[in-house]
């Protein structure tokens, strides 16, 4: 395949553009809104919904911190406290962290790959509606006094029918079903998009690191989520139809639930955190204005991270009495993850050190990430060691550790990413000054909240206690943590203020305000529904920077490239995109994407009826399947036969 030096022949540019506009337009009114399949719109819905969840989870965190601010506090009773910490964990893990990463990926990946939408736009919409269904279902439970109260991990027998009667646990388990189906839809369509719809010549060795991280994350989702499907089904069927999967009286085993849960739960952490590594790579490249050092090492460590994550589930279960002879193996394999993460950190540091760094807010968040994540990694090494873990397991030390890893490792890069891509999403810049204030509030508040928890844990404060006695001497550090939590809250409010203020008053951004390297910056800000007038060709690993194809090393003096190679010959009178080969991204065939459709929404409603109904009556599984099948029939029914001519 060859690129020819011919200017694109455009008979009537204006007419073509309005044709594209019309073909990719979404319907109007509420019906149109429900039928949207454009990936930005869906991605944005994910992000906004996830941030609403972050807000709710954050409020719950504050309530927890208020309760623990001093000893023998009676702000919340044990029942409310248990509901709130469970809902906090569940919300943050299932309804915020994973979906927000999915949302960012849905928004960015098609643009970074240089195409017009995800591979399965309707599946994408369906996934979102199910995710929304999960959010609404859980919070419906929370607001009708049926919030789950057995911890976000729901260990049986505590979560079994005998010890938590009522519908709390069932609502939790079915909410998991909603989010896992949604996550699986997203993973499937993202992999298909990345594999088959990349810009021509974007070979494997040229895929942006963020897209790599999403690819790894999606594969992890595909191999990890089925485990939580099984775990939540164990719970649900034991509770509703009296099976015995985790019932020890009839041969079941509660520890099996832990194995299955953590076979999902450990990779889950990486499902959240690997996209964040992608954010960091994108921000570091753009804001240090140089090629990333050690791109192949980065890719291989990402993949190794994903692989190793599946071997580590046991280290959540050291206290259950595992074979003593295995301790050395478990410790060693847990430590290995530090090596692959370490390689990536060194690569970023080398890039930042040798690049022309522009100290933006986004980069502030990256620096914050590096500091916090390294600390979290160090405590992680402590937890990897079996004897040390047995001492601090299920104490506030672990709470501190995973907040360092998840807030430091995922939330900070996420904030950085939002500062980085906000101009692309809205067409306006966020306030840098407010952004830096925002960063320092979050950074200081975060360390104030969570650093003392290390000490509390070492002093023996267990997790998930609703109160403690004054004789334990934990009051001061807890008060400090509570104050820190409120500083984080102020930081969060500042961020929201910045988002809303800049939406109106921010500086107009232009297509590529950061002079960044990857293809999404070639699209308009905010992007059109079809992303690109002409699909781009990836002439190098950093397609918007001037560089000969074979010399990635000389990119440090790159400038953004005004005239790029593009694809012509796609029909604009239907939603046509280009399918390329998996490895070298050579053009293979053209492919017509489906347009807007109400059926994903209707199907999601039918599936939700089945899911929600089955909590109350198992027969809804059957009736739900039937109506969902009918809805699917409507979805796929051949309406307009596609014309066969090219």
């Amino acid at each position, binding site marked *: 395949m060859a690129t020819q030096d011919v200017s694109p022949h455009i008979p009537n540019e204006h007419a073509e553009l309005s044709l594209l506009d019309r073909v990719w337009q979404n319907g109007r009114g509420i019906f149109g809104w429900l039928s949207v399949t454009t990936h930005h719109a869906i991605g944005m819905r994910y992000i906004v919904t996830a941030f609403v969840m972050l807000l709710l989870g954050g409020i719950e965190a504050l309530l927890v911190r208020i309760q623990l601010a001093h000893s023998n506090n009676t702000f919340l*009773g*044990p*029942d409310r406290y*248990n509901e709130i910490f469970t809902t906090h964990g569940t919300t943050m893990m299932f309804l915020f962290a994973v979906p927000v990463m999915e949302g960012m990926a849905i928004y960015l990946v098609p643009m970074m790959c240089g195409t017009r939408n995800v591979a399965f736009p309707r599946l994408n919409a369906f996934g979102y509606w199910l995710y929304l269904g999960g959010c609404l279902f859980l919070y419906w439970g929370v607001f009708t006094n049926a919030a789950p109260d*057995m*911890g976000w991990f729901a*260990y049986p*027998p*505590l979560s079994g029918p*005998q*010890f938590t009667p009522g519908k709390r646990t069932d609502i939790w388990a079915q909410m998991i079903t909603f989010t896992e189906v949604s996550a699986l839809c997203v993973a499937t369509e993202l992999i298909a998009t990345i594999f088959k719809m990349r810009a021509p010549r974007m070979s494997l060795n040229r895929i942006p690191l963020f897209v790599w991280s999403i690819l790894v994350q999606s594969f992890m989702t595909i191999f990890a989520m089925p485990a939580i499907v099984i775990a939540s089904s164990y719970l649900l069927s034991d509770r509703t139809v009296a099976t015995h999967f985790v019932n*020890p*009286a009839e041969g079941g085993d*509660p*520890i099996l639930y832990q194995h299955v849960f953590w076979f999902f739960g450990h990779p889950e952490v990486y499902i959240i955190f690997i996209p964040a590594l992608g954010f960091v790579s994108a921000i570091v490249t753009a804001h240090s204005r140089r090629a990333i*050092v*050690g791109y192949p*090492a980065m890719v291989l460590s990402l993949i190794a991270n994903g692989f190793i994550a599946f071997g580590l589930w046991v280290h959540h279960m050291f*206290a*259950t*009495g595992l074979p*003593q002879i295995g*301790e*050395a193996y478990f*410790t*060693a394999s847990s*430590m290995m993850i*530090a*090596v692959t993460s*370490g*390689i990536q950190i*060194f*690569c970023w540091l*080398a890039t930042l*050190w*040798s690049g*022309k760094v522009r100290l933006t807010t986004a980069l502030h968040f990256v620096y914050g990430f590096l500091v916090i994540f390294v600390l979290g990694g160090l405590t992680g*090494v402590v937890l*990897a*060691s*079996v*004897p*040390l*873990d*047995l*001492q601090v*397991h*299920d104490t506030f030390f672990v709470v501190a550790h995973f907040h360092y890893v998840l807030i430091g490792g995922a939330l900070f890069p996420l904030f950085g990413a939002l500062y980085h891509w906000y101009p692309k999403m809205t067409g306006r810049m966020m306030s840098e000054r407010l952004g830096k204030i925002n960063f320092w509030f979050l950074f200081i508040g975060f360390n104030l909240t969570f650093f003392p928890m290390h000490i509390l844990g070492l002093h*023996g404060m*267990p*997790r*998930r*206690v*609703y*109160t*403690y006695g004054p004789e334990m001497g934990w009051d001061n550090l807890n008060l400090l943590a509570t104050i820190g939590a409120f500083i984080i809250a102020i930081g969060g409010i500042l961020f929201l203020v910045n988002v809303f203020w800049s939406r109106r008053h921010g500086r107009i951004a232009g297509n590529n305000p950061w002079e960044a390297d990857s293809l999404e910056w070639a699209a308009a800000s905010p992007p059109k529904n079809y992303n690109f007038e002409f699909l781009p060709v990836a002439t190098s690993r950093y397609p918007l920077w001037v560089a000969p194809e074979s010399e990635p*090393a*000389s990119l*440090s*003096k790159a400038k953004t490239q005004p005239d790029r190679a593009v694809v012509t010959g796609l029909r604009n009178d239907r939603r046509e995109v280009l399918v390329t080969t998996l490895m070298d991204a050579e053009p293979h065939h053209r492919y017509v994407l489906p347009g807007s459709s109400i059926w994903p929404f209707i199907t999601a409603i039918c599936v939700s009826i089945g899911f929600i109904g089955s909590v109350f009556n198992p027969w809804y599984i059957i009736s739900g399947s039937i109506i969902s099948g009918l809805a699917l029939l409507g979805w796929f029914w051949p309406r307009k036969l596609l014309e066969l001519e090219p």
Partner: protein
Amino acid sequence: RTLMRGHRNAEENQPLENHERAQTRETRLRSIVTVSSVVTVVLLFILLVASISIGKANADLGASGKPMIIQVIGNQWWWQFSYLNDDPSQVLTTANEIHIPIGKTVLIQGQSNDVIHSFWVPNLHGKRDLIPSRVTTEYIRADRPGIYRGQCAEFCGLQHAHMAFYIVAEPEDKFKAWMQAQLQPAVAPATPALAQGQQNFLNYACVYCHQIRGTTASGTNGPDLTHFGSRRTIAAGTLPNTPGNLGGWIVNPQSIKPGNHMATIAVKPDDLQPMIQYLESLK
């Protein structure tokens, strides 16, 4: 920083040379990354060796002679302890507070009656989960005399926070004396007031759940109260064991430890005082 920037501007004027220099710099950066990664691996390996040797030391605890075996059964939300012995008359069952001799290895044999709990005495050793349908084991040894607080470390429901216990480590002879005292049935009431208290206790529903050896109270759902007066706390470490606290606990356990499984029994105010005195007399 300004120096470096100036240096780079100069570079841009000489594109050819600049490319080569960029290449060598790239190589240098990569080798720095490689070296750092290797150093990380070496450090981790040292930590691994240290971790294994600690684990070995812990495991070796059990190898030294025949240990004393204490069976721990977790309940929502209190602890039952049994000193196992081949001679059934020497088996002691008690709750929420135990004594151990210093310098002697104790094998903790963990089980659970309901949900998963975790046995943890922070100053003695790591933790071990108590799991229904399984028996888990752990060795502990106290080298210094003292009172060690233990706490449930696995979330076990409403009152997970109030599920503590105490281990009193003392010299062998003192321990033996304690053990002998504990093996005795409850002391008979010495005064009429105490006898009244005993009678009150036996008249109320307390007996369905609690045992006082030497009386007809033989329930097993709740903690054994045979030597209740000798314990430091009531309700699994929730309150210091004082007559006032005990009264409050009997009259309204739910206000002190909401959600716990002790039944609220309407004890008449006149019956309460002797009952408290009697229970506190059970040293």
